[in-house]
């Protein structure tokens, strides 16, 4: 019943760039063709070394159906593993012109064994092309790299740099140290040199830290907001360590961490920077300027103020050119392009958020 309506909307011109789509392996063995024999053997014998309490469990608590839309389970494999279903359920009816793949697990960013992490990284990047981008050219891969091995990460980024099917570089915002730390700087230098944004998606696998600064949460509702504070910590680290000063061409996309908090955080940082900047003399400009110049935010899960129009004010403070639409398909809390805004953006505002900002950032035609 919904489908005909959706096709009408898509043909009416509401095409979108979806900045957060999660692919999945049908089985872990899907990676085998892309792994050297030595690491296939390792994976089969020892498995991955995820830093979480219970091996083989979800790394996060989830409300329903493993965090997925109940209707997104294919006949075989987990949600996101069946390209045909992704096309018929999401890409086609929602008028997706380009979709950014967010591959978070088994890409090495969570793996302590750095040699295995490097093998996983290469494999997952090949796999994204073969399983999704080649058969569906609307999709764009991310260069997934293990941030804890910056030297390898740089080599993998450079190896993929000429292939524009890789739109950005994925590292985990839940890294061993806050991401502004100098151990990660070679990755930012490579990103700047290769003209790719750094994509930081919340709930990337843990670097061994609890998801909140005060320990593990009890309920999923708590965990959901830990993503927001985690993003704030990451952003303040990038600002005050001087990453944006050191890499003036660096672009960072903060994905699924909310955005309404960004203006308030920037105000606070500016206020304290004015008074205490002797501590960080390398931070030469008000923090809000770095955020405004270097950061992009995705929309899902969008904030819904009691007075819907207040969100337009907040977006205005961030910049209408800095917010990019995302669905988070196939997760249960995905945002639907036709229902996401509870206020009426102008046509120009809609085009920017649904499509043009992402096209400009990622160099899409």
């Amino acid at each position, binding site marked *: *019943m*919904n489908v005909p*309506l959706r096709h009408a909307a898509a043909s009416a011109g509401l095409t979108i760039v979806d900045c957060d789509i999660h692919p999945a392996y049908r089985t872990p063995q899907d990676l085998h063709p892309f792994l050297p024999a030595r690491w296939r053997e390792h994976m089969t014998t020892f498995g991955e070394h995820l830093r979480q309490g219970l091996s083989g469990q979800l790394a996060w608590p989830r*409300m*329903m*159906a493993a965090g997925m*839309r*109940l*209707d997104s389970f294919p006949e075989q494999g987990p949600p996101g593993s069946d390209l045909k279903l992704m096309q018929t359920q999401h890409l086609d009816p929602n008028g997706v012109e380009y979709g950014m793949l967010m591959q978070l697990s088994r890409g090495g960013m969570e793996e302590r064994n750095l040699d295995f992490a490097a093998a996983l990284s290469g494999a997952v990047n090949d796999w994204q092309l073969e399983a999704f981008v080649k058969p569906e050219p609307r999709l764009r891969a991310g260069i997934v790299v293990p941030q804890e091995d910056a030297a390898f990460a740089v080599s993998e980024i450079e190896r993929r740099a000429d292939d524009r099917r890789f739109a950005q570089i994925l590292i985990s915002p839940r890294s061993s140290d806050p991401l502004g730390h100098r151990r990660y700087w070679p990755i930012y230098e490579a990103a700047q040199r290769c003209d790719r944004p750094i994509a930081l998606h919340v709930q990337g696998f843990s670097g061994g830290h609890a998801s909140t600064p005060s320990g593990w949460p009890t309920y999923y509702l708590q965990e959901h907001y830990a993503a927001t504070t985690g993003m704030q910590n990451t952003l303040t680290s990038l600002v005050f360590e001087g990453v944006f000063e050191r890499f003036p061409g660096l672009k960072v996309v903060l994905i699924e961490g909310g955005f309404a908090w960004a203006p308030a955080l920037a105000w606070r940082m500016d206020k304290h920077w004015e008074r205490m900047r002797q501590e960080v003399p390398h931070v030469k400009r008000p923090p809000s300027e770095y955020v405004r110049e270097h950061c992009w935010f995705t929309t899902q899960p969008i904030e819904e103020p009691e007075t819907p129009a207040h969100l337009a004010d907040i977006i205005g403070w961030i910049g209408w050119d800095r917010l990019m639409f995302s669905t988070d398909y196939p997760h*249960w*809390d*995905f945002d*639907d392009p*036709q*229902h996401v805004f509870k206020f009426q953006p102008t046509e120009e505002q809609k085009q920017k958020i649904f499509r043009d900002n992402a096209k400009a950032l990622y160099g899409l035609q």
Partner: protein
Amino acid sequence: MTRRETRQVVARASDVKPGTARVVTVKGRDIGIFNLDGEFFALANRCPHAGGPLCQGRIVALVQSDGPGHYRLARQQEFLRCPWHGWEFDIRTGQSWCDPNSTRARQFAITVEPGAQLVKGPYVAETFPVSVEEDYLVIDLAG
């Protein structure tokens, strides 16, 4: 169109067992039929929140609590949870649990009628053969 022509036989009553649901198409509309212990209800298969296929969701209870450490299940199997965003609706009324004041799933009148009655009347559209021995579910699109 007279009121009676909006009615349509959609299933044998015995086809929708207690505690289960079935989605049928009536004049191009997808409608979910629910059997709550022998009482039948019908809701549009479209979530008023974001348009999801509501009636393909799980049939659940309400979890209620008097305070931390205490909980109980109430109104077991009387709520429908949308498969997309998890909004819950009272199957009996279509009322939203998340936003009861302004959100309601579209409800249709549904009745159980004996086949013997249906074969007499010329005003009810049939989607499959009706026999006099059985009971049938009739949805009224105007209801």
